[in-house]
Protein backbone atom coordinates (compact mmCIF):
# COMPACT_ATOMS: atom_id res chain seq x y z
CA UNK A 1 0.00 0.00 0.00
CA UNK A 2 1.63 3.19 -1.19
CA UNK A 3 1.38 6.36 0.87
CA UNK A 4 0.28 9.67 -0.60
CA UNK A 5 3.87 10.89 -0.52
CA UNK A 6 5.04 7.86 -2.50
CA UNK A 7 2.29 8.39 -5.06
CA UNK A 8 3.22 12.06 -5.41
CA UNK A 9 6.87 11.16 -5.85
CA UNK A 10 5.99 8.54 -8.46
CA UNK A 11 3.92 11.09 -10.40
CA UNK A 12 6.72 13.65 -10.12
CA UNK A 13 9.08 11.07 -11.56
CA UNK A 14 6.89 11.07 -14.67
CA UNK A 15 6.01 7.38 -14.83
CA UNK A 16 2.58 6.01 -15.72
CA UNK A 17 2.64 3.86 -12.59
CA UNK A 18 2.31 6.89 -10.29
CA UNK A 19 -0.57 8.27 -12.31
CA UNK A 20 -2.28 4.91 -12.26
CA UNK A 21 -1.97 4.73 -8.47
CA UNK A 22 -3.39 8.21 -8.02
CA UNK A 23 -6.37 7.55 -10.26
CA UNK A 24 -7.16 4.19 -8.71
CA UNK A 25 -7.08 5.65 -5.21
CA UNK A 26 -8.85 8.97 -5.75
CA UNK A 27 -10.63 8.59 -9.09
CA UNK A 28 -13.98 7.51 -7.64
CA UNK A 29 -13.93 10.17 -4.93
CA UNK A 30 -13.24 12.96 -7.40
CA UNK A 31 -15.72 11.59 -9.93
CA UNK A 32 -18.47 11.29 -7.30
CA UNK A 33 -17.94 14.87 -6.18
CA UNK A 34 -18.14 16.15 -9.75
CA UNK A 35 -21.13 13.95 -10.58
CA UNK A 36 -23.09 15.55 -7.71
CA UNK A 37 -22.65 18.93 -9.38
CA UNK A 38 -22.90 17.96 -13.03
CA UNK A 39 -25.98 16.08 -14.16
CA UNK A 40 -24.44 14.48 -17.24
CA UNK A 41 -22.20 11.47 -16.50
CA UNK A 42 -20.10 12.01 -19.63
CA UNK A 43 -19.38 15.59 -18.56
CA UNK A 44 -18.48 14.33 -15.11
CA UNK A 45 -16.05 11.79 -16.59
CA UNK A 46 -14.47 14.41 -18.78
CA UNK A 47 -14.07 16.78 -15.85
CA UNK A 48 -12.54 13.98 -13.78
CA UNK A 49 -10.07 13.36 -16.55
CA UNK A 50 -9.25 17.09 -16.73
CA UNK A 51 -8.80 17.14 -12.97
CA UNK A 52 -6.20 14.38 -13.04
CA UNK A 53 -4.41 15.80 -16.05
CA UNK A 54 -4.21 19.14 -14.28
CA UNK A 55 -3.00 17.41 -11.12
CA UNK A 56 -0.26 15.54 -13.02
CA UNK A 57 1.00 18.71 -14.64
CA UNK A 58 0.83 20.76 -11.43
CA UNK A 59 2.09 18.07 -9.09
CA UNK A 60 5.09 20.23 -8.15
CA UNK A 61 2.76 22.77 -6.56
CA UNK A 62 1.20 20.18 -4.24
CA UNK A 63 2.00 20.95 -0.62
CA UNK A 64 1.34 18.04 1.75
CA UNK A 65 1.46 20.42 4.71
CA UNK A 66 -1.63 22.29 3.52
CA UNK A 67 -3.95 19.44 2.59
CA UNK A 68 -4.12 15.74 1.88
CA UNK A 69 -3.78 14.57 -1.70
CA UNK A 70 -7.50 13.75 -1.91
CA UNK A 71 -8.48 17.22 -0.70
CA UNK A 72 -6.07 18.83 -3.14
CA UNK A 73 -7.61 16.86 -6.00
CA UNK A 74 -11.10 17.86 -4.85
CA UNK A 75 -10.00 21.49 -4.90
CA UNK A 76 -8.86 21.17 -8.52
CA UNK A 77 -12.07 19.34 -9.39
CA UNK A 78 -14.20 22.00 -7.70
CA UNK A 79 -12.63 24.85 -9.65
CA UNK A 80 -12.77 23.02 -12.97
CA UNK A 81 -16.40 22.06 -12.39
CA UNK A 82 -17.41 25.59 -11.45
CA UNK A 83 -15.72 26.90 -14.58
CA UNK A 84 -17.54 24.29 -16.63
CA UNK A 85 -20.91 25.18 -15.08
CA UNK A 86 -20.33 28.88 -15.61
CA UNK A 87 -19.63 28.24 -19.28
CA UNK A 88 -22.62 25.99 -19.78
CA UNK A 89 -25.18 27.37 -17.39
CA UNK A 90 -24.71 30.80 -15.84
CA UNK A 91 -25.73 30.83 -12.20
CA UNK A 92 -28.48 33.34 -11.62
CA UNK A 93 -29.37 34.14 -8.04
CA UNK A 94 -33.06 35.11 -7.87
CA UNK A 95 -33.77 38.35 -6.06
CA UNK A 96 -36.13 36.64 -3.64
CA UNK A 97 -33.22 34.52 -2.44
CA UNK A 98 -31.29 37.61 -1.42
CA UNK A 99 -34.06 38.66 0.89
CA UNK A 100 -33.58 35.69 3.19
CA UNK A 101 -29.99 36.63 3.95
CA UNK A 102 -31.17 38.86 6.75
CA UNK A 103 -30.17 37.34 10.08
CA UNK A 104 -33.23 37.05 12.22
CA UNK A 105 -33.18 33.30 12.96
CA UNK A 106 -30.76 31.79 15.42
CA UNK A 107 -28.56 28.80 14.66
CA UNK A 108 -30.38 26.74 17.28
CA UNK A 109 -33.77 27.53 15.77
CA UNK A 110 -32.52 26.58 12.31
CA UNK A 111 -31.03 23.34 13.59
CA UNK A 112 -34.30 22.43 15.25
CA UNK A 113 -36.24 23.17 12.06
CA UNK A 114 -33.83 21.10 9.92
CA UNK A 115 -33.81 18.14 12.33
CA UNK A 116 -37.49 17.27 12.65
CA UNK A 117 -37.23 13.79 11.18
CA UNK A 118 -40.47 14.36 9.28
CA UNK A 119 -40.64 12.44 6.02
CA UNK A 120 -42.30 15.19 3.95
CA UNK A 121 -39.60 17.65 5.00
CA UNK A 122 -36.81 15.28 3.98
CA UNK A 123 -38.41 14.68 0.60
CA UNK A 124 -38.95 18.40 0.11
CA UNK A 125 -35.32 19.12 1.00
CA UNK A 126 -34.22 16.53 -1.54
CA UNK A 127 -36.09 18.45 -4.22
CA UNK A 128 -34.95 21.86 -3.02
CA UNK A 129 -31.35 20.73 -3.26
CA UNK A 130 -31.60 20.80 -7.06
CA UNK A 131 -32.45 24.49 -7.04
CA UNK A 132 -29.34 25.46 -5.14
CA UNK A 133 -26.40 26.97 -7.03
CA UNK A 134 -23.57 24.45 -7.55
CA UNK A 135 -21.20 25.95 -5.01
CA UNK A 136 -23.88 25.89 -2.32
CA UNK A 137 -24.83 22.34 -3.19
CA UNK A 138 -21.20 21.32 -3.05
CA UNK A 139 -20.72 22.93 0.35
CA UNK A 140 -23.67 20.94 1.68
CA UNK A 141 -22.41 17.68 0.22
CA UNK A 142 -18.86 18.22 1.44
CA UNK A 143 -19.95 19.14 4.93
CA UNK A 144 -23.05 16.98 5.51
CA UNK A 145 -22.63 14.08 3.11
CA UNK A 146 -18.86 13.57 3.13
CA UNK A 147 -18.55 14.84 6.73
CA UNK A 148 -15.63 17.09 5.94
CA UNK A 149 -14.80 19.78 8.50
CA UNK A 150 -15.19 23.39 7.37
CA UNK A 151 -11.41 23.86 7.38
CA UNK A 152 -11.09 21.22 4.67
CA UNK A 153 -14.08 22.61 2.76
CA UNK A 154 -12.46 26.03 2.89
CA UNK A 155 -9.31 24.66 1.22
CA UNK A 156 -11.33 22.98 -1.52
CA UNK A 157 -13.55 25.99 -2.14
CA UNK A 158 -10.81 28.56 -1.70
CA UNK A 159 -12.60 30.53 1.03
CA UNK A 160 -11.96 31.16 4.70
CA UNK A 161 -13.68 28.85 7.22
CA UNK A 162 -15.47 31.88 8.65
CA UNK A 163 -16.83 32.86 5.24
CA UNK A 164 -17.96 29.29 4.66
CA UNK A 165 -19.69 29.17 8.05
CA UNK A 166 -21.61 32.32 7.06
CA UNK A 167 -22.46 30.85 3.69
CA UNK A 168 -23.64 27.65 5.32
CA UNK A 169 -25.87 29.64 7.63
CA UNK A 170 -27.41 31.45 4.68
CA UNK A 171 -28.05 28.21 2.79
CA UNK A 172 -29.71 26.58 5.80
CA UNK A 173 -31.75 29.68 6.33
CA UNK A 174 -32.83 29.76 2.69
CA UNK A 175 -33.88 26.11 2.86
CA UNK A 176 -35.74 26.77 6.06
CA UNK A 177 -37.65 29.67 4.49
CA UNK A 178 -38.56 27.56 1.50
CA UNK A 179 -39.75 24.78 3.77
CA UNK A 180 -41.94 27.33 5.57
CA UNK A 181 -43.57 28.22 2.24
CA UNK A 182 -44.89 24.70 1.64
Amino acid at each position, binding site marked *: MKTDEQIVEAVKDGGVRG*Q*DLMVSRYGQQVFAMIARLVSDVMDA*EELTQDTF*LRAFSKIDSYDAQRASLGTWLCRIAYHLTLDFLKRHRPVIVPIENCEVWQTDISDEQL*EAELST*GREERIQRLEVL*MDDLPPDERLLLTLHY*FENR*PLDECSFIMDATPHALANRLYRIRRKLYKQLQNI
Partner: protein
Amino acid sequence: MTTYQDTDLREALRRKYADTPQLPADFMQRMQKSAPKPTRRPKYAYIAALAAAACIAFAVLMVWPTNGDPESDGSKLLVQQERTTKTDRQPDTTKLVASIQETIKHVDTESRVLPVKAAVHQAKKTDRQLVEQANTASASDSLDYYISKIERELAQVDDSLYIERIHRVMHADERLQRIVNNYIMNELHKDAQSHQATIINNVKTDDDEE
Protein backbone atom coordinates in the same frame (compact mmCIF):
# COMPACT_ATOMS: atom_id res chain seq x y z
CA MET B 1 -16.01 25.19 14.44
CA THR B 2 -19.64 24.33 15.09
CA THR B 3 -20.95 21.21 13.39
CA TYR B 4 -24.67 21.27 12.79
CA GLN B 5 -26.68 18.10 13.09
CA ASP B 6 -29.47 19.10 10.68
CA THR B 7 -30.54 15.48 10.41
CA ASP B 8 -33.24 16.19 7.82
CA LEU B 9 -30.68 17.79 5.56
CA ARG B 10 -28.22 14.92 6.03
CA GLU B 11 -30.90 12.37 5.29
CA ALA B 12 -32.05 14.24 2.20
CA LEU B 13 -28.47 14.35 0.91
CA ARG B 14 -27.89 10.68 1.72
CA ARG B 15 -30.97 9.66 -0.24
CA LYS B 16 -30.24 12.01 -3.10
CA TYR B 17 -26.68 10.80 -3.60
CA ALA B 18 -27.18 7.18 -2.57
CA ASP B 19 -26.70 5.96 -6.11
CA THR B 20 -23.67 7.96 -7.22
CA PRO B 21 -22.47 6.61 -10.57
CA GLN B 22 -19.23 4.64 -10.55
CA LEU B 23 -16.16 5.66 -12.46
CA PRO B 24 -15.80 3.33 -15.47
CA ALA B 25 -13.19 0.60 -15.04
CA ASP B 26 -11.37 1.58 -18.22
CA PHE B 27 -11.18 5.22 -17.19
CA MET B 28 -7.40 5.16 -16.77
CA GLN B 29 -6.83 3.53 -20.15
CA ARG B 30 -9.05 6.07 -21.87
CA MET B 31 -7.34 8.91 -20.09
CA GLN B 32 -3.91 7.66 -21.11
CA LYS B 33 -5.05 7.42 -24.70
CA SER B 34 -6.26 11.00 -24.82
CA ALA B 35 -3.54 12.47 -22.64
CA PRO B 36 -0.04 13.29 -23.84
CA LYS B 37 2.56 10.67 -22.90
CA PRO B 38 4.23 11.48 -19.60
CA THR B 39 7.87 12.19 -20.01
CA ARG B 40 10.52 11.45 -17.44
CA ARG B 41 11.92 14.59 -16.02
CA PRO B 42 15.26 15.08 -17.72
CA LYS B 43 17.65 15.54 -14.83
CA TYR B 44 20.44 16.31 -17.25
CA ALA B 45 18.54 19.46 -18.23
CA TYR B 46 19.58 21.07 -14.95
CA ILE B 47 23.20 20.10 -15.53
CA ALA B 48 23.01 21.44 -19.09
CA ALA B 49 21.55 24.72 -17.84
CA LEU B 50 24.32 25.02 -15.26
CA ALA B 51 26.97 24.22 -17.87
CA ALA B 52 25.51 26.84 -20.23
CA ALA B 53 25.55 29.45 -17.47
CA ALA B 54 29.15 28.55 -16.63
CA CYS B 55 30.12 28.81 -20.32
CA ILE B 56 28.55 32.25 -20.61
CA ALA B 57 30.31 33.41 -17.45
CA PHE B 58 33.61 32.00 -18.72
CA ALA B 59 33.14 33.65 -22.12
CA VAL B 60 32.47 37.00 -20.47
CA LEU B 61 35.56 36.61 -18.32
CA MET B 62 37.65 35.69 -21.35
CA VAL B 63 36.37 38.57 -23.46
CA TRP B 64 36.51 41.09 -20.67
CA PRO B 65 40.26 41.52 -20.13
CA THR B 66 40.98 41.79 -23.88
CA ASN B 67 38.46 44.59 -24.16
CA GLY B 68 40.46 46.89 -21.96
CA ASP B 69 43.85 45.27 -22.53
CA PRO B 70 46.59 47.82 -23.19
CA GLU B 71 48.05 45.37 -25.74
CA SER B 72 44.95 45.51 -27.89
CA ASP B 73 43.10 48.13 -29.90
CA GLY B 74 44.61 51.59 -29.53
CA SER B 75 47.83 50.39 -28.01
CA LYS B 76 48.43 47.99 -30.90
CA LEU B 77 47.97 50.84 -33.31
CA LEU B 78 50.36 52.86 -31.27
CA VAL B 79 53.02 50.17 -31.26
CA GLN B 80 52.62 49.69 -34.99
CA GLN B 81 52.83 53.41 -35.56
CA GLU B 82 55.83 53.55 -33.30
CA ARG B 83 57.59 50.81 -35.29
CA THR B 84 56.96 52.46 -38.66
CA THR B 85 58.06 55.91 -37.53
CA LYS B 86 60.79 54.96 -35.09
CA THR B 87 63.64 55.25 -37.57
CA ASP B 88 63.02 58.83 -38.59
CA ARG B 89 61.66 60.08 -35.28
CA GLN B 90 63.25 62.52 -32.95
CA PRO B 91 63.60 61.83 -29.21
CA ASP B 92 60.70 64.23 -28.51
CA THR B 93 58.24 61.99 -30.39
CA THR B 94 59.17 58.98 -28.27
CA LYS B 95 58.41 61.00 -25.19
CA LEU B 96 55.06 62.00 -26.64
CA VAL B 97 54.19 58.35 -27.38
CA ALA B 98 55.17 57.36 -23.88
CA SER B 99 52.97 60.04 -22.40
CA ILE B 100 50.07 59.02 -24.66
CA GLN B 101 50.52 55.40 -23.60
CA GLU B 102 50.31 56.54 -20.02
CA THR B 103 47.08 58.36 -20.88
CA ILE B 104 45.68 55.22 -22.55
CA LYS B 105 46.52 53.09 -19.55
CA HIS B 106 44.85 55.61 -17.31
CA VAL B 107 41.71 55.78 -19.45
CA ASP B 108 41.63 51.99 -19.77
CA THR B 109 41.77 51.40 -16.07
CA GLU B 110 39.13 54.04 -15.56
CA SER B 111 36.79 52.69 -18.20
CA ARG B 112 37.24 49.04 -17.34
CA VAL B 113 34.48 47.75 -15.12
CA LEU B 114 36.21 45.77 -12.42
CA PRO B 115 34.60 42.75 -10.75
CA VAL B 116 31.53 44.38 -9.38
CA LYS B 117 31.67 43.86 -5.65
CA ALA B 118 35.33 44.74 -5.41
CA ALA B 119 34.76 47.80 -7.56
CA VAL B 120 31.96 48.99 -5.33
CA HIS B 121 34.24 48.74 -2.33
CA GLN B 122 36.86 50.69 -4.21
CA ALA B 123 34.52 53.56 -4.94
CA LYS B 124 35.81 56.35 -2.77
CA LYS B 125 33.68 59.26 -3.78
CA THR B 126 30.27 59.71 -2.26
CA ASP B 127 27.22 60.06 -4.43
CA ARG B 128 26.90 63.69 -3.53
CA GLN B 129 30.45 64.49 -4.55
CA LEU B 130 30.02 62.64 -7.79
CA VAL B 131 26.76 64.38 -8.61
CA GLU B 132 28.30 67.77 -7.87
CA GLN B 133 31.24 66.92 -10.04
CA ALA B 134 28.97 65.75 -12.83
CA ASN B 135 26.96 68.95 -12.69
CA THR B 136 29.96 71.23 -12.92
CA ALA B 137 32.28 69.27 -15.20
CA SER B 138 32.19 68.44 -18.89
CA ALA B 139 30.98 65.09 -20.27
CA SER B 140 34.48 63.66 -20.37
CA ASP B 141 35.21 64.82 -16.80
CA SER B 142 32.07 63.20 -15.50
CA LEU B 143 33.11 59.80 -16.85
CA ASP B 144 34.05 58.78 -13.31
CA TYR B 145 30.55 59.51 -12.18
CA TYR B 146 29.00 57.33 -14.85
CA ILE B 147 31.47 54.52 -14.28
CA SER B 148 30.63 54.53 -10.57
CA LYS B 149 26.96 54.56 -11.46
CA ILE B 150 27.43 51.56 -13.76
CA GLU B 151 29.32 49.72 -11.03
CA ARG B 152 26.57 50.34 -8.54
CA GLU B 153 23.89 49.22 -11.00
CA LEU B 154 25.79 46.07 -11.86
CA ALA B 155 26.15 45.23 -8.20
CA GLN B 156 22.39 45.21 -7.84
CA VAL B 157 21.19 43.28 -10.89
CA ASP B 158 20.84 39.52 -10.99
CA ASP B 159 22.96 37.21 -13.14
CA SER B 160 20.87 37.28 -16.32
CA LEU B 161 20.70 41.08 -16.43
CA TYR B 162 24.32 41.35 -15.36
CA ILE B 163 25.60 39.64 -18.51
CA GLU B 164 23.37 41.75 -20.75
CA ARG B 165 24.52 44.98 -19.03
CA ILE B 166 28.15 43.92 -19.23
CA HIS B 167 27.79 43.50 -22.98
CA ARG B 168 26.42 47.02 -23.25
CA VAL B 169 29.29 48.36 -21.18
CA MET B 170 31.75 46.53 -23.42
CA HIS B 171 30.14 48.10 -26.46
CA ALA B 172 30.38 51.55 -24.87
CA ASP B 173 33.98 50.85 -23.95
CA GLU B 174 34.79 50.08 -27.58
CA ARG B 175 33.39 53.47 -28.60
CA LEU B 176 35.41 55.13 -25.88
CA GLN B 177 38.57 53.47 -27.09
CA ARG B 178 37.85 54.63 -30.63
CA ILE B 179 37.72 58.23 -29.36
CA VAL B 180 41.06 57.77 -27.63
CA ASN B 181 42.57 56.13 -30.72
CA ASN B 182 41.45 59.01 -32.93
CA TYR B 183 43.07 61.40 -30.53
CA ILE B 184 46.32 59.45 -30.56
CA MET B 185 46.34 59.16 -34.35
CA ASN B 186 45.77 62.91 -34.71
CA GLU B 187 48.57 63.66 -32.27
CA LEU B 188 50.94 61.34 -34.09
CA HIS B 189 49.95 62.78 -37.46
CA LYS B 190 50.56 66.33 -36.26
CA ASP B 191 53.85 65.33 -34.74
CA ALA B 192 54.95 63.60 -37.92
CA GLN B 193 54.04 66.66 -39.99
CA SER B 194 55.99 69.03 -37.78
CA HIS B 195 58.95 66.64 -37.83
CA GLN B 196 58.82 66.47 -41.63
CA ALA B 197 58.61 70.24 -41.81
CA THR B 198 61.69 70.55 -39.63
CA ILE B 199 63.59 68.15 -41.87
CA ILE B 200 62.49 70.03 -44.95
CA ASN B 201 63.52 73.32 -43.38
CA ASN B 202 66.89 71.88 -42.42
CA VAL B 203 67.48 70.65 -45.95
CA LYS B 204 66.54 74.01 -47.38
CA THR B 205 68.87 75.74 -44.96
CA ASP B 206 71.69 73.47 -46.03
CA ASP B 207 70.99 74.26 -49.69
CA ASP B 208 70.89 77.92 -48.90
CA GLU B 209 74.22 77.65 -47.14
CA GLU B 210 75.70 75.90 -50.16
